[in-house]
């Protein structure tokens, strides 16, 4: 291969590694564009990526030293005879020492000889224990345990003789698959049953394994599980109980050969970590870890060091496995959860219980799963998404099913079962349930149980989450959620006609509340028939005619007249909810029906969320807005609010829409989320708190409300309440990147270094969080004047954001250092960087940052041009009009030595000046800048008192500013203002405050040098006796 070719391979490889395993296939095909050799090369490397996981983890010198240690212990030559076994090959270093393949000539079979490592062999206590354990283990005769045949000694070295196996360890079985795919659940469950069976047999014989991990479980070529090394792990302690306790945590990486900690420590039970006496239940915990890894490919308890892993085992809840593998049956998740109970009394008590549960799961999976494909069970968990905006985008999906209220009483909810499709046409499969729910959700009073909630209940019911919502299951969900009724739909053919049926049953009594039937002459009329049946149902069930009349757009008008388009749209929902890219489906829906408003709206949402394709997002959202008459009332609110928030940025209009939306649909949480974020920009944080509380009240199972609540409490400097909000979310097992950032901010505001570090460590778990927290760290460094360090950290944040595919955010992060440099007086550097960044994005937030950096560096012409361009492109945008433009124009006026005009220009910004402009939402620049610049203007007009008031205002609102460097600079500016006002004492103190914060600042920062000089010149005045 030539280096050029390798570059190509490497490029594609790197991109593919960044993708989720299931996205790689399509990517590879596209990236290799038919170049088979290229594709083969990349695939072969990709296949090696996971197995290479621990490769070279141990430093070379360590490996060399171990080899040396081992070399001196003497290898046994091939062909040699040990006892009566003839050595035919070396199999490698296993868990206990060297392993050879040998032939047993008497029985004519192959065996494996495992030699005990020397240090153990030399310790008589250990040796005795080893013999005892081996003897006990050899009594185990079970098809899922690797049988021990014999123990012996050769030249003073103890060995055991065991069953020779064909296959690979579970580690290879799990991670060593082509394309990094996980083994299918159907394969995992039988293996897990066998492992549980093996454990059960051993435990019944009183033998604890103590070191259950994938490397100790073998999968034979016939896909049977065999547990290795039973009874051989680690009990080489003296009989003294104290010593036993201590030694149970003593790990023997030399024995397992993995060198570094993570491989082994990760499977330890909490009681092992705590060095408590062990019983059989320790194996059940470790088995849970193994199971978790088998179905997710990830370890539940992770960390950079053994200590961090221990901490995680003792204190953290693992990421719910279903989040990592959406195909996971809920029951399997429940089984894993129960294995991973930290308190062993709450865990499974016996391996046999696990085996029973697994068998039941297997039976259910084998039988009832034919219907899987037809269910619309949208898996909508708290998919970890980055920004508030993106989270809102996603959460909107969740909420759409979640609302309403029926006639029965106004607290009632109903459960929508799957449609029974008795036609042979699959186009009806997911489509009709989706259509019916869109239709029914137009009612402000009906409330359907959300799919999110349904999933939760299914899990509690020990049903796979992807199980079809059959009438029986739906009824149970109905009972469990305290709902009033189940709606069962059906479609069948009658001659050339279609018959739709809809039955509402009370789940408490089984009484039929309503039973409707309509017919459709042809396929094209089915949607109209569905609308009709829904209206009839609403009437019957007792909704007032007035509201039905007001909110009952026929489905064909509310969505699309095309069944195919509706089907594509339904599939788009499903894939989006799973966290996969749904663009294809929404585009397909639009292709079939270009006037499908909601499909445009969702496309806009998807583009604008994680993908950060703001232009495409604006385009689609605008299109949806233009077509908004072709949507139901409820969806029209959504489209209109999205349009104001995402396209025009007119938050006053957005607020009006959201208020109306909330009023019309009182059980809808989304408008409250939106209102909260609108109040963020207005700086009305108390109102933000109220809205967030409403959102939480309406949708307690969604993380976003808690994130917003915590954020607004933090902004109000009510840190305890912010923490409580996060605790509430954690109690519900919710987690979002926003939580980690909030935790960081809270710790930062308290000066709690340990808390900050904890948040940073926690952020590392998810790339989507790590970039955000890293940027927070960069800001904090900039705040204390460590500019070079901050720039470096900021680069990392940019890289991480790019890796997480957060393009827009990466550019925003890249802009920050230019602003810092400009604020600190490093003007040539600032201007240079600003010019670079300006090329990267046309986004208003980025352009504002560029203009800020240039304006603070004394530039005028180009700043003017950017300001004019922003004004022209975003004439209605609240942040642009009331924040960016006044600040930029005031800075221009300052540069032109017209400070009085600057003060006047800033009046426009006054109403929202305590709010976070759009550029500041993720903690970047812009927040409180109107106040800062006004302060600068008063300094220029020599109005010391007025200037001091402005800077003091900034210092009084640290919880809003968090770590923006103007916070530190405000001490300096306050000092200048006070000096100007003649208050030397306080000025001196403020200079000292600033110099204290900047005590470790880069010494070459111009602002720092000026500050020092100014401070020095104050000294003699203070000391002057006259």
């Amino acid at each position, binding site marked *: 291969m030539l280096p050029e070719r390798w570059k190509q391979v490497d490029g594609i490889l790197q991109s593919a590694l960044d993708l989720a395993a299931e996205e790689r296939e399509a990517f590879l095909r596209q990236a290799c564009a038919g170049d088979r050799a290229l594709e083969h090369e990349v695939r072969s490397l990709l296949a090696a990526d996971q197995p290479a996981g621990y490769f070279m983890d141990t430093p070379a010198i360590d490996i060399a030293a171990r080899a040396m240690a081992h070399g001196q212990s003497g290898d046994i030559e091939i062909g040699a005879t040990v006892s009566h076994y003839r050595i035919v090959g070396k199999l*490698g270093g296993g868990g206990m020492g060297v392993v050879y393949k040998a032939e047993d000539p008497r029985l004519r079979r192959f065996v494996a000889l495992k030699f005990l490592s020397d240090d153990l062999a030399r310790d008589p206590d250990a040796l005795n224990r080893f013999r005892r354990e081996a003897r006990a283990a050899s009594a185990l005769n079970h098809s899922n345990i690797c049988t021990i045949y014999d123990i012996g000694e050769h030249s003073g070295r103890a060995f055991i003789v065991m069953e020779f196996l064909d296959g690979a360890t579970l580690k290879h079985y799990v991670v060593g698959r082509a394309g990094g795919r996980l083994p299918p659940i159907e394969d995992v469950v039988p293996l897990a049953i066998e492992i549980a069976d093996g454990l059960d047999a051993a435990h019944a014989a009183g033998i604890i394994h103590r070191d259950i991990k994938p490397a100790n479980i073998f999968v034979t070529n016939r896909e049977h599980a065999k547990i290795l090394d039973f009874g051989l792990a680690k009990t080489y302690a003296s009989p003294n109980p104290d010593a036993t306790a201590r030694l149970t945590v003593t790990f023997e990486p030399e024995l397992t050969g993995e060198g570094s900690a993570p491989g082994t420590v990760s499977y330890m039970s909490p009681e092992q970590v705590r060095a408590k006496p062990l019983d059989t239940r320790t194996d059940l915990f470790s088995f849970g870890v193994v199971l978790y890894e088998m179905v997710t490919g990830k370890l539940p308890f992770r960390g950079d060091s053994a200590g961090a892993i221990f901490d995680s085992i003792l204190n953290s809840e693992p990421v719910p496995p279903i989040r990592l593998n959406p195909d996971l049956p809920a029951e399997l998740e429940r089984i894993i959860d129960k294995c991973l109970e930290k308190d062993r009394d709450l865990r499974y008590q016996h391996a046999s219980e696990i085996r029973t549960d697994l068998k039941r799961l297997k039976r259910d999976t084998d039988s009832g799963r034919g219907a899987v494909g037809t269910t619309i069970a949208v898996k909508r968990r708290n998919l970890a998404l980055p920004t508030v905006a993106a989270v809102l985008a996603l959460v909107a999906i969740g909420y759409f099913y979640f609302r309403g209220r029926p006639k029965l009483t106004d607290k009632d909810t109903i459960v929508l079962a799957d449609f029974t499709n008795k036609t042979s046409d699959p186009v009806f499969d997911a489509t009709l349930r989706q259509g019916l729910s869109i239709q029914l959700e137009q009612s402000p009073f009906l409330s359907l149980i959300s799919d999110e909630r349904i999933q939760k209940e299914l899990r509690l019911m020990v049903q796979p989450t992807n199980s079809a919502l059959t009438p029986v299951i739906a009824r149970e969900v109905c009972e469990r959620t305290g709902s009033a009724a189940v709606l069962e739909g059906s479609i069948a053919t009658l001659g050339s006609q279609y018959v739709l049926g809809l039955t509402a049953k009370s789940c408490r009594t089984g009484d039929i509340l309503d039973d409707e039937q309509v017919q459709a002459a042809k396929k094209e009329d089915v949607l109209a028939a569905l609308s009709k049946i829904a209206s009839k149902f609403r009437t019957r069930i007792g909704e007032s005619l007035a509201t039905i009349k007001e909110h009952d757009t026929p489905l064909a008008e509310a969505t699309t007249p095309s069944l195919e388009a509706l089907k594509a749209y339904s599939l788009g929902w499903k894939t989006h909810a799973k966290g996969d890219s749904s663009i294809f489906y929404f585009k397909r829906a639009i292709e079939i029906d270009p006037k499908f408003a909601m499909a445009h709206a969702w496309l806009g949402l998807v583009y604008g969320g994680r993908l950060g394709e703001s232009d495409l997002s604006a385009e689609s959202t605008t299109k949806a807005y233009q077509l908004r008459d072709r949507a139901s009332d409820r969806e029209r609110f959504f489209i209109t609010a999205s349009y104001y928030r995402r396209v025009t940025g007119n938050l006053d209009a957005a607020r009006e829409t959201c208020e109306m939306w909330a009023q019309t649909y009182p059980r809808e949480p989304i408008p409250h989320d939106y209102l909260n974020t609108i109040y963020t920009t207005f700086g009305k944080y108390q109102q933000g708190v109220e809205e967030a509380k409403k959102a939480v009240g309406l949708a307690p199972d969604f993380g976003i409300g808690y994130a917003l609540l915590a954020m607004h409490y933090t902004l109000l400097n009510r840190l305890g309440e912010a923490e409580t909000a996060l605790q509430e979310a954690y109690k519900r097992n919710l987690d979002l990147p926003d939580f980690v950032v909030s935790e960081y901010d809270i710790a930062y505001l308290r000066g709690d270094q340990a808390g900050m570090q904890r948040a940073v460590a926690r952020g590392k778990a998810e790339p989507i969080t790590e970039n955000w927290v890293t940027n927070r760290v960069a800001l904090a460094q900039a705040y204390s004047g460590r500019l070079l360090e901050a720039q470096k950290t900021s680069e990392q944040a940019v890289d991480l954001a790019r890796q997480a595919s957060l393009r827009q955010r990466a550019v925003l992060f890249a802009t920050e250092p230019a602003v810092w440099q400009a604020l600190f007086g490093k003007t040539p550097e600032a201007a240079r960087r600003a010019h670079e960044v300006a090329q990267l994005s046309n986004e208003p937030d980025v352009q504002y940052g560029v203009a800020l950096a240039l304006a603070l560096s004394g530039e005028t012409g180009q700043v003017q041009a950017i300001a004019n361009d922003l004004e022209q492109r975003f004439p209605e945008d609240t942040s642009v009009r009331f924040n960016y433009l006044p600040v930029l124009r005031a800075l221009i006026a300052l540069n032109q030595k017209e400070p009085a005009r600057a003060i006047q220009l800033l009046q426009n910004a006054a109403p929202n000046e305590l709010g976070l402009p759009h550029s500041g939402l993720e903690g970047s620049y812009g927040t409180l800048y109107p106040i800062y610049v006004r302060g600068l203007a008063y300094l220029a007009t020599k109005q010391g008192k007025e200037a001091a008031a402005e800077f003091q205002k900034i210092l009084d609102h640290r919880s809003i500013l968090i770590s923006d460097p103007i916070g530190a600079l405000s001490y300096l500016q306050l000092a200048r203002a006070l000096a100007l006002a003649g208050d030397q004492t306080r000025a001196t103190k403020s200079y000292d405050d600033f110099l204290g914060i900047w005590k470790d600042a880069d010494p070459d920062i111009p602002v720092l040098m000026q500050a020092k000089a100014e401070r020095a010149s104050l000294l003699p005045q203070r000391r002057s006796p006259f």
Partner: protein
Amino acid sequence: MQRSSQHAESDTQDVSTLLRAWSGGDHNALEKLTPIVYEELHRLARRYMKRERPGHSLQTTALVNEAYTRLVDYKRMQWQNRAHFFAVSAQLMRRILVDHARRHNLKRGGGVQHVPLDEASVVGGEDMDLVALDDAMNSLARLDPRKVQVVEMRFFGGLSVEETAEVLKISTVTVKRDWRAARTWLFRELTGASTADAPRTLETS
């Protein structure tokens, strides 16, 4: 133990001087450096064999770190160019460790094909074939020298990601990416696994 650490103490200055000489092209310096590295290697090996106490994983890591620190205690050395020093010591470690492995033929005797029983045995474990790794690194160097440098720094030099980034003047993210790609490439070379299913049998061939 006492003796050994005193010994290392007095060596530190020598190592610094020798390294500088070696990087300046003085081949004799290598001959003097080798026994010093060997001494550390033996010290480590002795500890593994004797097992002064049952090895705790954390202790082992500490042990290795200690060995590196003794050999290349950059903090106490007055090198104008820290990065250069890192680079030179990583090269040195590679050279000496691979030579050692080659000389003792720790891996290549017998002609037995190694097939894994435990994942640790193919790679990462004590059986890892440093000579084969060195060969593979040379092959990779023809395609992508920087990735090989990253491996040299991290695996042989024991440098952290951050230090490697500093030496090579690239971002830590790039180091991590290079490391992952190189590790994958080398692993594939060493295991001969063109598909990941390769190590699925225990049959010796």
